[in-house]
């Protein structure tokens, strides 16, 4: 199965594009972090100085090296996304499988809960939590996962319900396989594509959410993030800081989102057989 997935994916243009972009980004930012010579919190340089050999992207209004700041910001943003997406995926798989396997009241409550959560815009919850509680970034990442799991749970549940009726799963049950055996040996592996799709979709949303929340000023102002960089830089948009301060984080952010989006679109295209070209 896994072998097949890769074979199918590798011929999808957008998947290849997305993967190459993602790999390039990882390489650039790992190398970049290596090359950034300054502590991003070191505010001892002359503010708003233009790019130079020492400061490749110049210095910001607080006297910090923008290049080092950007490297940290990208890392923070992506880590936030990965953390939140992984947590949401785990929650989604757990809730989806429980709902599918248990059914009955538990399943009903889980699904109703997920529908209620899905109907509220996640950004609103995040704003309330961030502004009232002022939690750390990690807590916020987990909060986001708490509102973003339902879509995955629904997909997993419906797929698992379909799988449960398939002959080989029935056969395993008739052979006396326990629930845990069937879930571990049959359901979990067969749902693999859904994990990929779920993770990538959640990652996209989380990265986007992190940047937006930071842009709106809902994180600790000292925390480095692509969003907060854009926010501060945008305050000086009438100055000549565009090319070295504003554009770099914007481009980095676009590339990250694009790479994730391409992966998401290609995965959906490949795993939704109905969309396959004739």
């Amino acid at each position: 199965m896994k072998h097949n997935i890769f074979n199918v994916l590798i011929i999808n243009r957008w998947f290849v594009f997305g993967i190459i972009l993602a790999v390039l980004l990882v390489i650039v930012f790992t190398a970049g972090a290596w090359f950034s010579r300054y502590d991003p919190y070191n505010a001892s340089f002359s503010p708003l100085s233009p790019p130079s050999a020492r400061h490749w992207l110049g210095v910001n209004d607080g006297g910090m090296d923008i290049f080092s700041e950007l490297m940290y910001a990208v890392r923070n943003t992506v880590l936030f996304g990965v953390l939140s997406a992984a947590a949401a995926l785990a929650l989604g798989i757990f809730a989806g499988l429980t709902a599918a396997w248990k059914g009955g009241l538990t399943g009903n409550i889980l699904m109703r809960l997920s529908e209620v959560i899905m109907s509220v815009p996640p950004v609103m919850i995040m704003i309330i939590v961030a502004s009232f509680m002022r939690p750390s970034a990690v807590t916020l990442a987990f909060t986001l996962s708490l509102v973003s799991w339902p879509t995955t749970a629904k997909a997993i549940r419906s797929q698992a319900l379909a799988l449960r009726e398939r002959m080989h799963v029935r056969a395993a049950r008739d052979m006396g396989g326990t629930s845990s055996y069937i879930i571990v040996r049959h359901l979990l592996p067969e749902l693999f594509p859904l994990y990929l799709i779920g993770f990538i979709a959640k990652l996209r949303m989380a990265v986007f959410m992190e940047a937006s929340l930071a842009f709106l000023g809902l994180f600790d102002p000292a925390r480095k993030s692509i969003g907060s960089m854009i926010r501060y830089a945008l305050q000086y948009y009438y100055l000549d800081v565009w090319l070295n301060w504003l554009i770099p984080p914007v481009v980095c952010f676009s590339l990250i989102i694009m790479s994730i989006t391409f992966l998401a679109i290609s995965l959906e295209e490949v795993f939704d057989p109905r969309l396959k070209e004739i």
Partner: protein
Amino acid sequence: MKMEGKELRIKTFLSHNTRRIMTYLIAAFLLILLGYYLPRVLPGDYVTAMYSQSQAIITEEEEAWLKAEYADKESFCEYIIALVTLDWGYSLVFSEPVSDLIFSALPWTLFLLGSAHLLAMIIGFIAGVEAAWRRGPLEKLSVGLMTFLEGAPEIATGILLLFIFALVLGWFPAAGGETAYAGYGMFRWGLDVLYHTILPFITLFFAYLPGNFLLARGSMIVILKSPFLKTAYAKGLPSLRVRYGHGARNALLPVVTRFGLRFSFMLTGALVVETIFSYPGLGTLLFKSIALRDLPLIQAIVLFSSLLVLTVNIALEICYRFLDPRVRNET
């Protein structure tokens, strides 16, 4: 004979399962409950809870007044009554009633988001349907372009548009929703508003368009393979009738279903875009209130816009029931 059909429609509509609408109502109720309890679970009394981080300086007099106001809405029932009577409190930071602030920002947001969504929906849908119908190099190109656009975040497109068209070329204003204190007549004012709206509108339009396009194309491709479309074609109906009367009519369903979810996810970007262009809508108001830590205002905006989203979802649900007869008598 015709009446019977209509009666049937009404009957099935009334008797249909309203589970999804119930879900939205439950969500709305939970949100209101959250709005009621949030100030009460925070440490300290109302004023310390809500204004400890605020940039507003509160006099003794104001503090006493706030506390009295808060005590007024002690029970949940009173809170609800206050909500319904638009008594949402007073923003000390902006020195205006919260409801005034929200209702002066609301039309701008409704205009911007509404027009962007509506146009993106119509154009994206039609383009998607046509792309699926025609197939060919143009379709391939447009799918590529749309996929690329789908990958471009609103923050980036917004800033780039701002940079290119407002700063470098200077064709459009960089901020605001209208020219301040210009004193234009109705018509000039309308043009001025449109002129200011163009950049944020384009940003949002291109953020919403690809999703609609790709979804419409995808579902149309599926529909095109369905047997009933072959029937329609075999009946010798005109091509437009086949494409829209039979094909697009069905391809619309998943587009509508997914719209609600997409709408609430897309809200994040809309907040950012309004802020980038300092557009006088709810997003910018929220941005400002966050910057000034005006918690009562933040809470009110969040609650209000969440309820607005729920309303949109309920409206969509009702629309969907008319679009798809199959869900009407679903149990």
